[in-house]
């Protein structure tokens, strides 16, 4: 309870847009929980409600069993990165961290510690307005770590990072979770989380679509599918489609078949004289599992013009 982020039945309407529609999930300590969904699915809104910035119309959001706004020195409980660009450009990065530290009863020593931790180095003494997006992300992560909090909530921390930065943050998130912290990381790209998150909460249209371990999600999306390697894709597709299978192209000489078991695929291809070199149970990527889960939400957004918030 002490380090759990709990969201229950959140509903939030901005004018005509229903941003949250019964959002419910729990972030438990000791693992990285991915928070994924298309843009406009309600990820940022949920985080703002948890942080007490926006008030939900219905539902509750608790951090460590308490509403965020009741916390004294909240940054010692929850570290958050919402928008790395949300700082005054004429102040130096170090001074930005310094006022935040002072607001929590912390001193300049802790500021220098987190500057070292995120590798901001000498840039910390330059105006933050001149930072690249990647440096701003590092500054934002430094701010989130300032109070050494047991809970962390990072909104799209991968945005603007170079490959080296991506590797760094994946390692950082992993070690923060290994230290027993609850870590919630949002992204609109599942692939960014594939190697980082052990658990994902997939959202669409303001509510949870799936809340599962990454391994289960992949197993679910793989079920009943067959990967076929063939030099004659067109013929294979014709034969299999004729038998009622759904065929999608997945590579230069591979297709994914569903609706027909592997044995039957082999039989059909042999009978039809179609050459093939491999028939195997399909192993879905997290990305595929995600696309399947959020397809409805994406279609909805395309139909309505997708008011994102």
């Amino acid at each position, binding site marked *: 309870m002490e380090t759990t982020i709990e969201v229950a039945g959140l509903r939030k309407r901005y004018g005509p847009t229903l941003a949250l529609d019964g959002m419910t999930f729990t972030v438990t300590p000791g693992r990285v929980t991915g928070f994924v969904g298309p843009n406009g699915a309600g990820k940022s809104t949920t985080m703002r409600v948890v942080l007490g910035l*926006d008030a939900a119309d219905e539902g509750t959001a608790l951090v460590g069993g308490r509403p965020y706004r009741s916390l004294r020195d909240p*940054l010692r409980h929850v570290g958050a990165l919402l928008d790395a660009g949300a700082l005054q450009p004429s102040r130096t990065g170090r001074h930005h961290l310094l006022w935040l530290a002072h607001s929590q009863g912390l001193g300049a020593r802790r500021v220098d510690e987190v500057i070292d931790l995120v590798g901001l180095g000498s840039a910390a003494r330059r105006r933050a307005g001149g930072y690249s997006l990647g440096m701003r992300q590092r500054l934002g992560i430094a701010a989130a770590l300032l109070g050494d909090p047991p809970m962390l909530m990072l909104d799209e921390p991968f945005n603007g990072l170079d490959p080296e930065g991506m590797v760094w943050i994946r390692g950082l998130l992993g070690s923060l979770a290994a230290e027993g912290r609850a870590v919630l990381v949002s992204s609109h790209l599942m692939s960014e989380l594939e190697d980082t998150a052990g658990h994902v909460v997939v959202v669409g249209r303001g509510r949870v679509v799936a809340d599962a371990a990454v391994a289960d999600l992949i197993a679910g999306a793989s079920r009943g599918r067959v990967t076929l390697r063939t030099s004659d894709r067109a013929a294979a597709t014709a034969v299999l489609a004729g038998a009622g299978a759904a065929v999608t192209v997945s590579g230069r000489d591979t297709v994914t078949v569903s609706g027909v078991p592997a044995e039957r695929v082999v039989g059909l291809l042999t009978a039809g004289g179609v050459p093939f070199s491999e028939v195997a149970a399909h192993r879905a990527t997290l990305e595929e599992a995600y696309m399947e889960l959020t397809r409805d939400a994406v279609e909805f957004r395309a139909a309505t013009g997708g008011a994102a918030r």
Partner: protein
Amino acid sequence: MRREVRAEWTKLRTEPGAVRLLPALVVLTVAASVAVCASVTCPAAGCGHDAVRLALGGVQVGQAVAAVLAVLVVGGEYGTGMIRTTLTAMPRRGAVLAAKAAVLTGVTLPAAVLAVLGSLLAGRLVLPGRGFTAAHGHPPLSLADGPTLRAVAGSVLYLVLVALLSLGIAFAVRDSAAAIGVVLGLLYASAVLPLMVGDPDWQLALWRLSPSNAGLAVQATTGLDGLPLSPWAGLGVLAAWAVAALTGGGLLLRARDA
């Protein structure tokens, strides 16, 4: 509340734009006072001028700087989105407003003291050359004179109250440009509004409601009987505006999504 004040103080002193406005407040106020004093003459006894009010005339320019400083303290955060970082770190919104008001008062007060004393000194040096001599009924300006001291202290408070009024409006409006427009409109447009109305009763009522006309009554040292409001009552009108703006801004800050 102590942490909020400390954080807001650190913010203000590490924002070069805000820091530069403080000397600007002093310099512009004194310079405008010099210009006012240099543009009038008192050719003979009974010229009817209020020498103290002339010497403190620069306050009418200085108030714009105080207003801009106060608006930027809030509007600068809304413009960049940093307000969300502020309210995440300090979720007690009333305390954030109070801390900003305290820090703003803390920096505006010494700047206002320098600006107003500098203006009085400028008047003391410039006015005698313009005919404001003891022979014409104008002894040198001095803080030992009761009404002069009241005008000086009142002018300092006037500048601080303008800053607080602007802070409240900025929290309500949440945009620097719009807030500066509202504040300057309130200070300058309301000052000339009574002149554009024919009806004397309305003229009087508008004068009494105008934060700048009423507030600057505190600078008057002659013809007090002819003023629509006594000096301190006039400053009270401005104080009421400031309290209303801070209360309104605070209520909106608490009620609205950040």
